[in-house]
């Protein structure tokens, strides 16, 4: 058994292996499908509040230093110290330089399926601090994205190119 405490260091080895074979993207999708088990129904039923509940639990179990809030139809999250990358950096094996990318890699497709737009912004790929924004209000979240660009964030990921799918799934969610 790989202890759950050490999972992320194993994950890091998997990323290095996959990156060398150009296989990261497909793997993120597989992880995203796996995470649907924990999140999809919850987010479809409870929307942003469901995300607060899910990541509230993660905050405790994964020992995150983070804050989040829902303001109207936007959820903001600030991961002050990511326990996952922190462990990977405190690791006798080399960190995968793309380690952080797995997070938008699995969250973005899941958000698309739930009918939400999503932005992940990172300070750097070797600093365990990042932020995320979630909303189904495209105008509002587009303005936020523009603002993040102005602020000079180099690493900004989103699912805005999946707009049509997000809008269809948003309608499905609203029926739920």
């Amino acid at each position, binding site marked *: *058994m*790989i*202890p*759950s*405490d*050490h*999972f*992320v*260091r*194993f*994950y*890091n*080895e*998997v990323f290095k*292996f996959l990156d060398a*074979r150009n*296989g990261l993207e*497909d*793997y993120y999708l*597989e*992880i995203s499908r*796996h995470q649907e*088990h*924990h999140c999809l129904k919850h987010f479809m039923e409870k929307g942003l509040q469901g995300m607060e509940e899910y990541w509230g639990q*993660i905050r*405790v*179990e*994964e*020992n995150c230093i983070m804050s989040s809030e829902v303001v109207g139809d936007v959820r903001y999250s600030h991961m002050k110290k990511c326990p996952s990358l922190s*462990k990977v950096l*405190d*690791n*006798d*094996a*080399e960190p995968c330089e793309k380690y952080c990318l797995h997070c938008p890699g699995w969250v973005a497709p899941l958000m698309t399926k739930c009918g939400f737009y999503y932005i992940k912004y990172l300070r750097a790929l070797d600093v365990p601090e990042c932020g995320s924004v979630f909303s189904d209000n495209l105008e509002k979240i587009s303005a936020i994205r523009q603002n993040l660009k102005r602020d000079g964030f180099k690493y900004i990921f989103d699912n805005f190119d999946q707009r049509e799918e997000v809008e269809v799934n948003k309608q499905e969610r609203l029926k739920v």
Partner: protein
Amino acid sequence: MLRYQENNQLHRDFHGTTNTTLDYIADNYGVDALKSILQDTGEKVYKSIHDKLAAGDASELLEHLNWFYFREGAKYQLTVEPDEIKLEVFECPAIRHLKKMGLPVSKHACLQTSEVNAGMCKNTQWESSVEVIGEGHCIQTFRKKEC
């Protein structure tokens, strides 16, 4: 002393992601590739355990086995002799949690034990083996090689 001090909250759902990953790598890259990643994890992530074994010191391996199976709530028995360490796990916490989540257990689940253990022992005077008795029940053995 353990290289990675883990004593705060536990996130058992990582067993689920490990399980998905085992199948994904085996299905897309083959079982040998999966074994190779797991052995690298044993040798490089657990460099400290590996290097101590290479120097004839099994102290961190013992602490690792004892602490993490205890921490994850396993029922197990650790038997230690000068040239042999035996860990019998009666109910694997990873498999127990997968079942709790309603996820099918990967057929490669036990490789995470056998191959990580093999990686820890690689190029040392120790060798490892895993005997699966039944689902979630195994005996892990670390034995000093005969000179």
